[in-house]
């Protein structure tokens, strides 16, 4: 029998953009068990409900993460709007859908770049991030921000996006789509890329379901669970699309799902622009109108399903805001796929869940 040894992996590691620690139990070069450890940068943002009123908590929710900020703002607003029984205008729903999908594009492009960097394909990494910059330019035009947008508010959006801006976005997306087709090719076809991804980190559909996995990590195991299509929040019930799945169950399948989701997101943005209704982008919330009740919203963030639980008491300060982020839900499955893998594959496997530790350490 081989000797077992324990290797500490992280919290600081060249392949990890954010701190997560794993105790890897090894037999020779094979991982037999991985024990996760987080909590290095926990900020306690949910506790700020004691000090910030329910309007200000939109800003707090956005600051949970710099990549998923659009979705966090949306999820929190959606939960409070359900409690307050606010029906937001159709234009706001379509704009929220459009902005969420732009967010998905830049998040997936960031991830593709990190993956390329992890297996040493630096020119591909830079190209992915260059294209992502063009999406961030669109955010800057639309909201004034590239990371924190502050466009979501209880009752809709803070500002409208004029039709000529939407037409400009459509042209920009055409250009981005052409560039993406070139960038996607090595991820699909390159032998070196396939050698690092195919057959690595198998997660069966049964395990994926049992472990509460979410997002592309789940859909790459062949389970077509996408809250956009099932819940139909925002304007997704008026958009034509099907959840993208792959039955490969490995790291290559996860990459494939995310690449296809980028093209799908571009298509959804185009549909939003084409179907954009006219009208207001918010409903007024009276100064003496406070939420009273509790609600849990779920939305499909780029990394997977996120849950937002809000409990309010009829005053301007809510009792509880709880965010269940997709990375948190994916940690048990990450540990599962690591058992039996080579030590050299650990960084790739950590990356294939698209970890967002900032979200997890909210």
């Amino acid at each position, binding site marked *: 029998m081989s000797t077992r040894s324990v290797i500490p992996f992280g919290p600081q590691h060249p392949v990890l953009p954010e701190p997560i620690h794993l105790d890897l139990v090894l037999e020779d070069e094979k991982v037999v068990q991985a024990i996760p450890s987080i909590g290095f940068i926990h900020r*306690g943002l949910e506790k700020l409900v004691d000090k910030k009123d329910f309007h200000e908590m939109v800003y707090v929710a956005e600051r949970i993460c710099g990549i998923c900020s659009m979705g966090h703002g949306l999820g929190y607003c959606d939960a409070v709007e359900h409690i307050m029984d606010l029906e937001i205008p159709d234009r706001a729903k379509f704009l929220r859908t459009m902005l969420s999908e732009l967010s998905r594009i830049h998040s997936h492009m960031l991830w593709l770049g990190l993956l390329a960097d992890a297996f040493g394909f630096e020119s591909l990494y830079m190209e992915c991030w260059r294209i992502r910059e063009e999406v961030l330019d669109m955010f800057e035009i639309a909201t004034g921000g590239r990371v924190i947008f502050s466009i979501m508010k209880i009752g809709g959006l803070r500002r409208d996006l004029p039709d000529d801006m939407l037409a400009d976005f459509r042209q920009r997306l055409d250009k981005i789509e052409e560039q993406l087709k070139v960038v996607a090719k090595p991820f699909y076809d390159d032998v070196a890329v396939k050698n690092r991804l195919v057959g690595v980190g198998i997660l069966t559909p049964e395990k994926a379901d049992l472990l509460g996995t979410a997002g592309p990590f789940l859909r790459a195991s062949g389970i077509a669970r996408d809250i956009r299509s099932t819940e139909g929040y925002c304007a997704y019930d008026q958009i034509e699309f099907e959840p993208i799945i792959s039955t490969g169950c490995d790291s290559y399948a996860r990459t494939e799902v995310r690449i296809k989701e980028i093209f799908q997101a571009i298509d959804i943005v185009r549909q939003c622009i084409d179907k954009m209704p006219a009208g207001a982008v918010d409903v007024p919330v009276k100064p003496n109108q406070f939420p009273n009740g509790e609600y849990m919203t779920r939305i499909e963030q780029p990394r997977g399903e996120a849950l937002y639980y809000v409990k309010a008491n009829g005053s301007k300060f809510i009792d509880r805001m709880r965010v269940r982020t997709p990375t948190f839900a994916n*940690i048990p*499955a990450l540990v599962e796929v690591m058992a039996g893998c080579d030590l050299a594959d650990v960084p790739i496997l950590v990356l294939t869940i698209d970890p967002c530790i900032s979200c997890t350490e909210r």
Partner: protein
Amino acid sequence: MNCEFKMVRAEEIIDEAQRLHYDGYHLMQQCATRTETGYELVYTFGKALDVLQVKIILDTDQPINSISHVFPCAFLYENEMHDLFGVDIKMISLDYKGSFYRTAIETPFK
């Protein structure tokens, strides 16, 4: 999303979790909210499009059993509830005993 809560007593939670597990549900999340007399726990389970929410009212010092032996991913949520709120959860499959979150003060949300 279904936001009706099914009230369950703390001592019945394992039976309830096992029933849901056999019915094909997966665990979506667990969270705690501080109340004047203790805690309010919300467990969310999903099966395809169906969502079921279970609510448990606990006194401050009242323990509750872990469901991590039924739903393996529960160990993360339960360690979180223990570390942030001080909820006394027994028999977590992987119990970090307070070191899951490295917080400056003990149980900051209590």
